[in-house]
């Protein structure tokens, strides 16, 4: 998880604002001649004219199965979005930051929550010790969400929320906060990660056992499909699977398998695939093995399109198109000679772009050591800008398509993924494979193999087991979240509990529990009732856990 220092955030905000403005200025269509800052985007730096795409008509970009991309004109129509994710401290600290970002022209906000919020604990819970406000903002109740968006027009902006286990509660809080300002839920735009399956597989931010969690997600998707037409319902994530040590093929296969599991759960609940599929999106890792990553992205689009069309019977081309966000691999960064990470991030970012990503987060060079410095955050964003505006790799769609090596590797990724799908099917599905520890074991083995290959120097990591030199560690600026923050937030949630209508809160929680027991009921309206009664996140989770139980992992070592 990336967290940004406060000074760094200010700087980053300026860059994001700048980027947003430039995106807005850009004309649609073949923006080559008048493109920002270059004027030569349909020709090389030496004036050689360039087509938008090379190769046969058959299988060209923008056509099923989309191996070469989902847009016929690639980045000429629309550059990827440079989306850097951030958040810290209390709701009012983060709110201040959001105002700053918006004043400088940014249209989208990205909320990073702290660990207790992500795990369903209130800030005064014993489990929250030392963690409040550390990796993101603490949101205990609707009161915090109201502060977070105080003075912000929630009907105008879009918001991305990176939260999974309690995603349904965060969404309810977001809807309630907007509606208290008179903004109807139908006007709200944004994305919520809400991908619980990869939590059991890799990131471990779960609350309930898998089956009830799936029901919650289906309820969320059904609710958004019906009532929030501008909301992206889920971001199916391989990033964390890769960070946990998987191979590229495992990341690809497990993520797509998760995606298909959501599709199956929704159709089993009676939804039409074309109703919800166009608003599913993906989130991948871009690791250091350049061509393998590009092949992975290409294979992902092809496999997804085929399964969606052939297996799930989707008819709307939008349902066949895999859209994805990418983040460079945190696990490829090294604590030794951290400046080298700039170079790694640049290659990884280029792989993501050559693979056709829709948006990109570039890591800062020193995230492996601590919260990044202002300078390193700036370099991370500049890396994307150099890529977008100087290298000209955006000129031609899928420039590596047709290369023997890349096509063969793409086929191999697909073959390995299909073989994993078959193994998962033998278990009876994703949930059964999770319960049997299949994914966890595969990942643990891959990650140990990788580590061993570094120990034995079969694989060289510059500065770690090769080209090592001893240098004094540089001092780093750190963002310190003080214990005072934790105490203040704990007091705030206690105040919320003391000052609300206790009877109304109890009634709302009872209604929620009854809905949890009734599979025909959609949970979302009941969750919105609970947050409106100022039930805290911890209380809502406890109430649901009384029905669903809490998940504990089977030891997979």
């Amino acid at each position, binding site marked *: 998880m990336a967290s940004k220092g406060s000074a760094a955030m200010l700087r980053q905000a300026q860059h994001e604002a700048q980027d947003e403005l430039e995106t807005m200025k850009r004309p649609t269509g073949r923006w080559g001649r008048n493109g920002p800052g270059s004027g030569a985007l349909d020709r090389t730096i030496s004036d050689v004219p360039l087509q938008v795409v090379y190769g046969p008509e058959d299988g060209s970009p923008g056509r099923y199965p989309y191996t070469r991309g989902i847009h016929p004109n690639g980045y000429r129509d629309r550059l990827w979005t440079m989306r850097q994710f951030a958040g810290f401290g209390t709701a009012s600290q983060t709110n201040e930051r959001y105002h700053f970002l918006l004043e400088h022209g940014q249209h989208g906000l990205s909320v990073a929550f702290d660990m207790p919020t992500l795990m369903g604990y209130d800030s005064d819970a014993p489990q929250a010790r030392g963690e409040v406000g550390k990796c993101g903002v603490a949101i205990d109740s609707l009161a915090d969400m109201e502060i977070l968006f105080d003075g912000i027009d929630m009907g105008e902006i879009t918001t991305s929320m990176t939260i999974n286990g309690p995603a349904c509660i965060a969404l309810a809080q977001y809807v309630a906060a907007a509606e208290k300002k008179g903004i109807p839920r139908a006007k709200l735009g944004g994305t919520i990660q809400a991908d619980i399956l990869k939590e059991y597989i890799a990131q471990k931010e779960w609350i309930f056992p898998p089956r009830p969690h799936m029901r919650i997600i289906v309820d969320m998707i059904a609710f958004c499909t019906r009532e929030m037409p501008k909301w992206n319902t889920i971001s199916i994530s391989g990033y964390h699977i890769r960070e946990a040590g998987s191979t590229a093929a495992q990341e690809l296969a497990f993520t797509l398998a998760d995606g298909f599991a959501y599709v199956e759960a929704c159709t089993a609940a009676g939804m039409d695939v074309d109703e919800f599929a166009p608003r599913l999106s993906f989130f991948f890792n871009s690791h250091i093995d350049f061509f393998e990553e590009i092949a992975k992205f290409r294979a992902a689009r092809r496999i997804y399109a085929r399964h969606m069309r052939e297996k799930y019977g989707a008819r709307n081309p939008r349902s066949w198109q895999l859209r994805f966000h990418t983040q460079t691999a945190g696990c490829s960064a090294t604590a030794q000679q951290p400046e080298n990470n700039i170079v790694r991030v640049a290659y990884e970012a280029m792989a993501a772009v050559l693979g056709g990503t829709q948006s990109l987060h570039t890591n800062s060079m020193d995230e492996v050591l601590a919260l990044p410095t202002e300078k390193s955050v700036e370099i991370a964003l500049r890396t994307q800008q150099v890529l977008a505006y100087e290298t000209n790799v955006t000129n031609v769609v899928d420039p590596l398509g047709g290369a023997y090596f890349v096509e063969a590797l793409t086929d191999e990724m697909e073959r390995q993924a299909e073989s994993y799908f078959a193994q998962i099917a033998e278990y*009876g599905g994703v949930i059964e494979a999770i319960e*049997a520890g299949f994914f966890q074991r595969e990942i643990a083995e891959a990650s140990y193999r990788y580590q061993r290959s570094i120990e034995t120097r079969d694989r060289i990591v510059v500065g770690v087991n090769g080209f090592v030199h001893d240098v004094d560690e540089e001092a780093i600026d750190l963002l310190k979240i003080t214990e005072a923050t934790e105490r203040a937030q704990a007091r705030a949630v206690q105040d919320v509990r003391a000052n609300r209508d206790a009877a109304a809160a109890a009634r709302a929680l009872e209604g929620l529990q009854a809905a949890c027991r009734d599979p025909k009921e959609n949970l979302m309206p009941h969750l919105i009732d609970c947050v409106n009664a100022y039930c805290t996140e911890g209380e809502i989770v406890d109430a649901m856990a009384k029905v669903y*139980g809490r998940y*504990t*992992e*089977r*030891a997979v070592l």
Partner: protein
Amino acid sequence: MDLLREFERQNPRALARAISLAEAGRGADLVRALYPRTGRAVTVGLTGPPGVGKSTLASALVREARARGKSVGVVSVDPSSPFSRGALLGDRIRLAEHFTDESVFIRSMASRGHLGGLAGATADAVLLMDAFGYDLVLIETVGVGQSEIAIAELAQTTIVALQPGSGDSIQVLKAGIMEIADVFVVNKSDHPMADQLRREIRSMMEMLHWTGWVPELVSTQALEGRGVDELVAAIERHVAYLNETGEIERRRRDAFSHQVRQLALGRLEERLDRALRAQPDDELDPYGAADRVVSQLWGE
């Protein structure tokens, strides 16, 4: 530390250290000194193939026992550590909610390097927990092989946990584990194939001739705690049966002679190994060589 004194003062570190000594084959003096205090605890064995939710079941049993005011010792045995001398023990994870309960003591054991075999060290651990004063000692072990059957013989009541829809569970039934079970548990009882498994267990039971106790069949969904009270009731009925019929004495004798046998075997094996190493390198046939070394051993 003066181990015996600390043990008597109910210092859990002393119990922990005592089990370590037993594992290293150095527990004899301690067990001797503490043996008169054993025999009070109810000992329950829990076994079954991997993945049936045994640890979850163990955790639920501990919770139920604690709710009834009983203190619990758990020996969690992992006999599956095939490489070097190292082992990776993760069965505690499911028991995490009991880690800070002073009336619960959990010990993980690996399989290698135990003089007198794994069962020998496990037996010592059970005796030590019994002597320390735990009301219930739960012996949990993964797998379906001989070592589990040996461990089961340590317990007064043996629970065999199985799960629906798994080939392993059927294999276990066929592998002669019927004879050691006092209580069968079909865990994950909400699985669509749970009924089928229950039928298979019943039909296999019908093929055997039972005298005295007939194994009970209980269904649980341990993750949600369902059926665990029935499991406890079944255990209690079995314990009552053992006490009423005097069978308990036979079980204790069995456990005792089992342990004696293990210890004796361990010592014999050691002497045998020594004697084998000392054999001259002549051209005897294997039968002749075996006769010679055995007669040397008896003559020692």
